[in-house]
């Protein structure tokens, strides 16, 4: 019932997380509407990735709540959240290096299917999965490398495989952790248009340092510093805000 009534795709309510004495998330609250494009910015060590890790379930918060479409998922395991429509990419590339691109994306598809428990039928015999994986690789422009192992391809291409694995799942909420990190200018443009092409059914929350590129993609912006939300709201308002300038340029 609550799931139907909720106006938000993702809600974070009063989240706290500390590593020993270091408080990396301090009373963070976010409300993100379905279809929204939210950019999360902040200096190094602001707690952006830690926040993502709590949303995805890799880390448990010390207190606070996380709701996906109104459902409290705070204590849910990462895979349970994935089955409720949450996908993520990683800042540090986390792919299956020895396997082909097709296999990598296939795993993304398989993760949400009951057939992932199937023990008596070779994975290679699922033609529909292979076709769907190749279609996703085509959308990120890597179809020609589908049969190559990930270890053979270039860094920029790996970034796109990261994206393809998450996009193949057709998530309702997609967390992108620095999707442009380490890319050349032309690669940035490619990935930017890829992110821009993600359908509106998917809510996108993105951590990114490259403001020139990322601001174009964002509708709303959250500024984090020392684990706290400093400013939060419409993109232009946040950029114009005095406190944003303070954090980025120093007082």
């Amino acid at each position, binding site marked *: 019932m609550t799931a139907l009534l909720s106006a938000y795709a993702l809600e974070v309510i009063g989240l706290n997380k500390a590593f020993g004495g270091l408080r990396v998330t301090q009373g963070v609250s976010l409300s993100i509407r379905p279809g929204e494009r939210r950019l999360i910015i902040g200096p190094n060590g602001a707690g952006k990735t830690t926040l993502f890790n709590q949303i*995805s*379930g*890799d880390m448990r918060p010390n207190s606070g709540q996380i709701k996906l479409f109104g459902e409290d998922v705070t204590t849910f*395991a*990462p*895979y349970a959240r*994935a*089955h409720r429509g949450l*996908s*993520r990419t*990683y800042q540090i590339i*986390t*792919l*299956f*290096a*020895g396997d082909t691109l097709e*296999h990598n994306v*296939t*795993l*993304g598809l*398989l*993760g*949400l299917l009951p*057939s*992932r*428990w*199937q*023990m*008596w*039928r*070779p*994975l*290679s015999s*699922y033609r529909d999965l292979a076709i769907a994986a190749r279609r996703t690789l085509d959308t990120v422009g890597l179809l020609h490398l589908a049969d190559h192992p990930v270890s053979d391809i270039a860094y920029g291409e790996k970034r796109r495989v990261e994206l393809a*694995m998450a996009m193949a*799942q057709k998530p309702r909420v997609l967390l992108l952790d620095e999707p442009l990190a380490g890319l050349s200018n032309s690669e940035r443009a490619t990935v930017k248009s890829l992110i821009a092409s993600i359908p509106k059914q998917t809510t996108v929350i993105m951590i990114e340092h490259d403001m020139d590129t990322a601001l174009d993609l964002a509708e709303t912006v959250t500024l984090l510093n020392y684990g706290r939300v400093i400013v939060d709201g419409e993109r232009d308002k946040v950029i114009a805000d005095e406190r944003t300038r303070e954090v980025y340029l120093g007082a």
Partner: protein
Amino acid sequence: MKWIASVLFAALALSLPFFMGDFYINLASQILIAAIFALSLNLLVGFGGMTSLGHASYLGVAAYISALLTSRYGFDHGTAALISILGTVAMAAFFGVIALRATGLGFLMITLALSQVLWGLAYRMSNVTNGDNGIAGLTRPAPFGLSLESAASFYWFALIVTVIAFAMMAIFVSSSFGSSLKGVRDQSRRMAALGFNPWMIRWITFIYAGFWGGIAGLLYVYYNKYIHPTSLSTTSSAEALLGVIAGGSGTLSGPAVGAALVLLLKNYASAYIERWNMLLGLVFLFIVLVMPTGIVPGLHKLVAHFRGRSS
């Protein structure tokens, strides 16, 4: 090359009883049993990234249950086999819950500790297990009324079971589930984020490996008609692990090759050298130095290298 090797192996396996004496036929049967055992351990070590030093538990417990039920409680072999496999699987499920609280070295130590408990019980609970004397005077089953008393007939029986075991484990690792298992081995965190339950995948694999360990245990006790606590010892677990690593963990045929090597060394070398363990150690050292990934992947590389040269 794989194709040629398979044909050669099949030809050898099928013709062996016709030109070899009983000694060698029996040796071949032992190799088959050790191969099933190593293959089952490889599901954990090679495909699951879970290095266990307690896999003898499943071989030993299945063997002991079968031995006790048939010799002491008058069960027929079929029922005894069923109960011992069910018991072994249940034990694997329970041990899995304990061992999978940890990964890596912690996992290894827990599996070692659990198997040591069983080994200790087999030694000390002599009113049940007959302790250090072991349980002797056991019989072999006679499936469909066919006696397995002769060396050749037992060999055929073991070969059929081995072929089924190999095929089922091969299908297992190439299945969707097998792909999930390898994924969890390589990137457990990513797999969880993609919707896979890493713990459940590891646990099911642990139980499945225990099942095939139990099958190897039944063959073991049928072959020997005798069971002793050493079958549960760490040495027994370690020999299988040695076979898996020497042959090539994470490959399908590697562990079988490794298991054969360990068994041959044990049988041949022990006739000439008293300290055959030392020789085994040296051979293992040699393999690790020359072919760090194991014999089978090493040979693959060698063949690929020479092919590259000739073309």
